[in-house]
Structure formats: structure tokens, C-alpha cells
């Protein structure tokens, strides 16, 4: 299994290099450069421009910059972020935890709501709870995520101020003791994570409902029932386990979406994560940061796919049998 995973990861390296090349080319072709973007509306004499270009190596031709970026990447260095005035590595290290918290919480909410909706749907198939849940989940899917975020802010942070409208911590809570700090973080992450997680419940709920309905008719479940397994055990252990295979696969595939596709949610809730970082880097024409963020998200895609496959193999007895 480990050899298989390593092989998959190694074979992804050319894809990653290609992604980096594509990203570089697109930023290069985009109008304006890092200096223009940084200067904003300021007018400066040509000497200042020239000195800025020299300082960031922008006076070199693109292919040379690309080659030196690849070379430094091979040495394990990610370069210097023009727009943040810090090493790219540090910038990413700052944004990644925020993203993982948000994505993790969103994933949990997504999973919980998806399983609940799927179970209810399958249990009350074609009766009113099924229809109600399906309608609800579908409506959530139909809403633009950023709009859902705005509405959540309007309702739950402004009209009824239950949750903070933005940011990751309250003032001063960064330095607080572990438990209050964690509580503060959870309080802040709830609204954006709920928006991000619930908006994509539909796919999971639908897959799970379909899977459960299929499994319920199968032989082994009837056997388990015959052995006297209680309804709870029957549903939660036997049926769910078998029906969750495609769901786990879907979750693995959606990991990168949750991590980097949360851009609009991060914009709405001022969450200092990867999506916003990549977006701002792109606007700033901050090539090293854009490349690092693109490659990182591509790595997540690869890892997500791999995890999906591995988890599927772990859950599905048929796959295991085949391997033995």
C-alpha cells in the first residue's frame, strides 16, 4: 500500500511541474507586473521603478526568472513574496493553519449534515421527511456560497449577533490559554464553516441515500438482520459502512475544493486563509506566491485523490479481497 502511494505521488511530479509552468505563463501574460500592482495609484519617477525591478529580479527575462525559480524550488526554497515583504514559506505557513481549521470544520459539518440527510432520506424514502430534507439540501446547493455567507452574516452576526461577522480570533485571544483560545476559535469558525459545509451537502446526501437504498436490498444485510442485529446497528454499522464508499471517495475529491475553493467564503468572512492569499497574490502579480499557492493546491488535489482511493480500498471488502 505504501509503495503504491509513493508511486502515485512520484508520478504526480510532472503534473505539478506542468501546473507551475502554466501558472507562471498566465501570470506573465497578464497585463501589468508586480511593481505596477504594488504602486497602486502612485506615480513615481522611472528611477524608482527601475530600482524596484532590480530588487525583485523583474529586469530579467521571464524564462530566466522561471529557471531560477525552479532551481530554488529544487533546493527547497519558495522565494520572496513581493507583496507581503516576507519569504513565501512564512506567508504560506501563516495561511495554512487558518485554511485547515476552516476546511476541517467545514468537512465535519458537511459530513454530519450529509450523513444525517442521507440516513433520513433512505429511512423515510419517498415520504415527507425525505422530500423535506431533499428540498432543503437542494436549496442550499442552489444558493451561491457567498450569498449564503452574506445572508448568514446579516441574520446571525448583525440582526441577532450570535456569531462574530469575521476574523479568526477575538482581540487578545491569540495569547489566551489553550481552552479559551480554542473556544474562541470555534466560535469564529462556526459561521464560515457552516456556510461552506452546508452549501455542498447535496452531493453527499444524494450519494449516501442512493447507496443506502441499494445496500438495503442486498444479501448480507438481510443476513445481519436475520442474525438479530438491532435497527440502529443495522443502519449505522452495516448499511452505512457499505454505502459510504462512494461518499468517502467524494470527500477525498472535495478536499482540495474545501481548501482552496473557499475563496469567496474567505472573502466574505475575512478569513486569513489560502484562497484569499492566492487571490490577492494574483492581483498583486506576486509570481512566487501565486506559483507556490497553485502548486500547493495541486498537491492537495493529488493527495486528496490518493486518500480517496486508499480510504475506498480500506472500506470496501471487495477491494481488500482482491488485494489478498
Amino acid at each position, binding site marked *: 500500500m505504501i509503495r503504491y502511494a509513493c508511486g502515485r505521488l512520484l508520478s504526480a511530479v510532472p503534473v505539478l511541474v506542468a501546473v507551475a509552468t502554466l501558472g507562471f505563463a498566465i501570470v506573465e501574460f*497578464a*497585463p*501589468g*507586473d*508586480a511593481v*505596477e*500592482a*504594488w*504602486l*497602486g*495609484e*502612485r*506615480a*513615481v*519617477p*522611472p*528611477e*524608482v*521603478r*527601475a*530600482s*524596484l525591478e*532590480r*530588487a*525583485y529580479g523583474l529586469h530579467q527575462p521571464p524564462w530566466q526568472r522561471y529557471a531560477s525559480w525552479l532551481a530554488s524550488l529544487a533546493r527547497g526554497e519558495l522565494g*520572496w513574496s513581493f*507583496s*507581503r*515583504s*516576507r*519569504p513565501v514559506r*512564512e*506567508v504560506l505557513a*501563516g*495561511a495554512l493553519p487558518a485554511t485547515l481549521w476552516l476546511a476541517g470544520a467545514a468537512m465535519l459539518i458537511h459530513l454530519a449534515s450529509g450523513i444525517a440527510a442521507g440516513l433520513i432520506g433512505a429511512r423515510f424514502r419517498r415520504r415527507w421527511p425525505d422530500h423535506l430534507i431533499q428540498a432543503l439540501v437542494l436549496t442550499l446547493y442552489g444558493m451561491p456560497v457567498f450569498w449564503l455567507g452574506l445572508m448568514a*452574516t446579516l441574520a446571525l*452576526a*448583525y440582526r441577532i*449577533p450570535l456569531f*462574530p*461577522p*469575521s*476574523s*479568526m*480570533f*477575538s*482581540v*487578545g485571544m*491569540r495569547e489566551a490559554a489553550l481552552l479559551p483560545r480554542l473556544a474562541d476559535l470555534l466560535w469564529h469558525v462556526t459561521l464560515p464553516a457552516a456556510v461552506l459545509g452546508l452549501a455542498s451537502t447535496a452531493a453527499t446526501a444524494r450519494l449516501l441515500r442512493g447507496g443506502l437504498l441499494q445496500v438495503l436490498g442486498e444479501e448480507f444485510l438481510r443476513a445481519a438482520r436475520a442474525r438479530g442485529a438491532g435497527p440502529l446497528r443495522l443502519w449505522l454499522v452495516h448499511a452505512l459502512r457499505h454505502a459510504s464508499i462512494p461518499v468517502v471517495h467524494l470527500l477525498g475529491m472535495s478536499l482540495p475544493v474545501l481548501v482552496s475553493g473557499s475563496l469567496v467564503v474567505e*472573502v*466574505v*468572512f*475575512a478569513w*486569513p486563509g489560502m484562497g*484569499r*492569499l492566492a487571490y490577492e497574490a494574483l*492581483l*498583486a*502579480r506576486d509570481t512566487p506566491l501565486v506559483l507556490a499557492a497553485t502548486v500547493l493546491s495541486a498537491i492537495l488535489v493529488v493527495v486528496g485523490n490518493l486518500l480517496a482511493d486508499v480510504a475506498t480500498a480500506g472500506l470496501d471488502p471487495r477491494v481488500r479481497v482482491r488485494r489478498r
Partner: protein
Amino acid sequence: MRAAAAHHPSSLLLAAACALAGCEGRPEQPPAGAGEPRRGGTAVLGTVVDVDNWNEYLSQQAFANALHRRLYPRLAREAPPEPGQPPRFEPELAEAWSFSEDRLALTFRLREASWSDGNPIQASDVRFTWRAQTSPEVGWINASTKEHIREVEARDPRTVVFHFDRAYPEQLADAVTGGVLPEHIFARVPFARWRTHDWSSVRVVSGPFRLAAYRPAEEIVLERNPGYYRAELPRLDRVVFRIVPDISNLLTQLLAGHLDYVDKLPPWEAARLERSGPVRIVEFRVPGFEYIGWNHRREPFDDPRVRRALTLAIDRQGLVDELLRGYGTVCAGPVPSWSAAADPALEPWPHDPGEAERLLREAGFARDSEGRLVRGGRPLALTLATNAGNRLREAVLVKVQEQLRRLGIEVQVASLEMAAFRERNAAGDFDAYVGGWTISGRALRQLFHSQMLPPRGANIVAYRSPRADALLERLDAAKTWEQALPVLRELQRCLHEEQPYTFLYEMPLLAAVAARLQGVSPGPPDDPLAHLEQAWIAVP
């Protein structure tokens, strides 16, 4: 973020501007029972932008500069101006200064003060700072303020002499621009490597505050510098900036009591907050204006009559009433209407579509069967652009589009992201755009002289007028403010008649302040956060 043309604080125009009108905003009434200033407490401020660099000389941002000035004071700073007076400077790190007989040497006497690590602040620090300011490797964007300073001489540890190559009105202002840096810290990194060094870990300061913590895109924490030379200040123990890139979101936090101060409010938000109560709105006058730049390289915008007609067709008072909610005034030219340098005889062009049509017909346009204005078979059509993300300007686009449409001019609008917007403008590849400048003395030359087309200067619209050129040359040669004033007035009349831009309006910086934060009053016009030193938290 407001625009800034060759940002050059406290120079000629400002000097003139502040002399008569005064730069204070609407005076602030302390609420009853606010009591005496007291020490201690944390103020929480909101900002939509993060600091671009913690080294003043590598930064271009107004917000970052406002923070740098809390960490590294200058030798002297412009005092809040008094009506009818030339600009005055009050001591900061220097306790006194004097000019030589020929005004070519300016000698500062440093006060006895020390850096927060205990080292004394010395003349050699001032000299080192000047070397950094003028180093081409550093590339400070305001390096032009130092172009007439030949040498900075550390005569003894507490005496420093600036040698100029000529005498002119803003010598003192130029000499003191920029905070003094501690040489023993900043000289550890050679200038060539400054731009790729992370400056957020420097803790040695001389100002009222020092940086306690910096979490990019999230939070900036300043804490009181106990070694600050004014022992009674600052009053606040800590100042926290919350970085939230959306202003409405910040205001929600302000209303919920999580924030004490948010500035750069859009006017509609200020109007809403003023109605809703618990916070007060403070206005800071800003020497700047918003405008539509017409590309003089392209027909028909090369014709002053057409430009004037376009100005007449746009209801600028309507923009002020409907978009600015009254927080601004229609302007007649680049000089702030409230400044002593403004020509009081000059009125902005009125909103007069009839006269606009007459001028356009005079310029050769006629109406076709569909009601469009046509000349030589070509309808009058244009693309009006601005930088994406500036909601106010995007709203101006939509309003102007509709107003010109009513006159029979087809307008496409485009919000371009900043890098693309700048590149198109610099290349002259546009019809018209909505922009803004924060201006000061030499900016006028940068904006309107025919030799200042990009990339040399900021004459983006390619305005070429012998009359304006001559006036700008005379303005440059003026040795004193009295000599400059009549030329400046003549220049304003010239710009009014030739309308290189459609001057739209001038607008104050609007800040919302929570009741518990007291002592927030506008200071020098180039330093919107100067009040942090004085501000205090009122006991509820």
C-alpha cells in the same frame, strides 16, 4: 486607498492650503461626562488593508506610513495649521533648528532622547537615514523630496547640518520628511538587500509606540514605548489593528462594540452610522480630488470644447448628493477649495446639458436619426474605466454612464484590476478613466506639464498646453510662497478653462469613532493617525 501623486507632504500647495482655511475637520464635541484624559487601556481599530512593509522607505502605503510615524518620529512635524499663517513646524526629535545666512545650510539640534533599547539617538542616525532615503538600491518612492540636499553632516552627536544646493520655500519640510531610523539596527542589512529582508521583527523604536505583534492579514498590535521622550504620552497602553478587507464587515464589528475606530468609510456607511447613533463620524480634510481623465491623444478629447461639454453634461452636484451623501463638495480644480491658494473667484462649471450640446455642435457633432451624437460618420462613444474594488468610483462610472447616455453618448464601463488599469493608462491605451489624486506642491507639475507624460511623470491624459507649461515653470522658480500664490491662481484659471480633467469632487476622510475612544481630532493633514498619541479610553 486614496491616490497620491508623488506624495510630498507639507510642501508648497499644502502650505498655502492650510494657511488660511486651516486643516482641521469638523470640530469634535466631547460627549458630556467624557471627563479628563486618562491613561491605560486598549484601543481596537479596524483597517481594510494590511501593512505592505514595516520599513518606511520600502513602503508606498498611506496606512503603513501612518503606523511608521508612530514608531519612528521625524526631526520635526508640521503643526496643525493656523489661519493666515505660513506652515509651522513643531519639534519632534530635534529640539531646535536654524538656517544659515544664505539659507543653504539648515542645522538641527537633537533632543536628548534614546532608542527603546537604551542607545542614544544621535546625529549619525540622521545621516544614515538620509543615506537610506537617497539610496537608489532602496528606491524610496519619495526620494525626490531630498533632491536638493547635497550632504547631511553629523557635526557632533547632537548636531546635524543639512546642506542644500539651492534655497526654496519648502526646505524645512523636505529636510524633515521621513522618520529617523536607528543606524545600529538598520545598518546590519546592506541597502541592496533591504527589499528582501523581513522588517516586521525590528523592535527598536523612538516613537510613542512599538510593534508588539504582527500577524499578517489578521492583526497588528502596538504597545506603548515606555522610553518615549514625552513621558506623559501616549495615554493608551495598546493599540490593536484588526485587518478585515471588507468595510461593511468592520462596521458590523464596530456596531457590535468590538472595534473603537474605523476610517476610510464609504459615505453611504457614514450616513447610515450617523443616523444609527452609538458612534460618531469625524471628518478629516484631505488635500485631494477625484476626476475623470480624458485621453487627449484621442479624438475628440483633444478638443477643450468637447472636454468642457462633457464636464457640463455630468451632474457633479448630483454625485455629491447621491453618492457622497453630502460629505464632499464639487471642485473647480486641483487646489482644495478650502485652501488659501484656491482662487475664490473660480466656480465649478454648472450642470448644463443644453450648453454641453451647444458646445458639441460647435465642435462639429450632430444628432443622427437614433439620437446619437455623430461627427464624420462616427458616433461619440467611449469606454470609461476605473480600478476594480473601489466601490465609490465604480458607482461614479455607472452614474456618469447614464448621464452621458441621456445626451446621446454611448459609454462602456470597465472595472480593471489595478495592475491592468495602470498598464493601460501608462501606455495611453484608454478613452477616459475615473481616478483621484492626493496632491501637494510639485504634484501639479507632475500632473499637467507636457514633459511629464508617463513614464516620466503622471500626466496620464497627455495634456499639452504651452500656457500651463509656462505657468508651471514660473511656479517652480518661485522662491517664496508670496511669489508662488499669483502664479498658482493663474494656473487654476487655465486648468478650469482647458479642462484637462473633468474635476468631480473633493471628499474628506471619514472615520467612525466609538463613544469610549476620546481625543480623536485631526492633526497634520498628511498624518491621519496622529491622534493615537493623544487618544484615551473614557471610563464608561
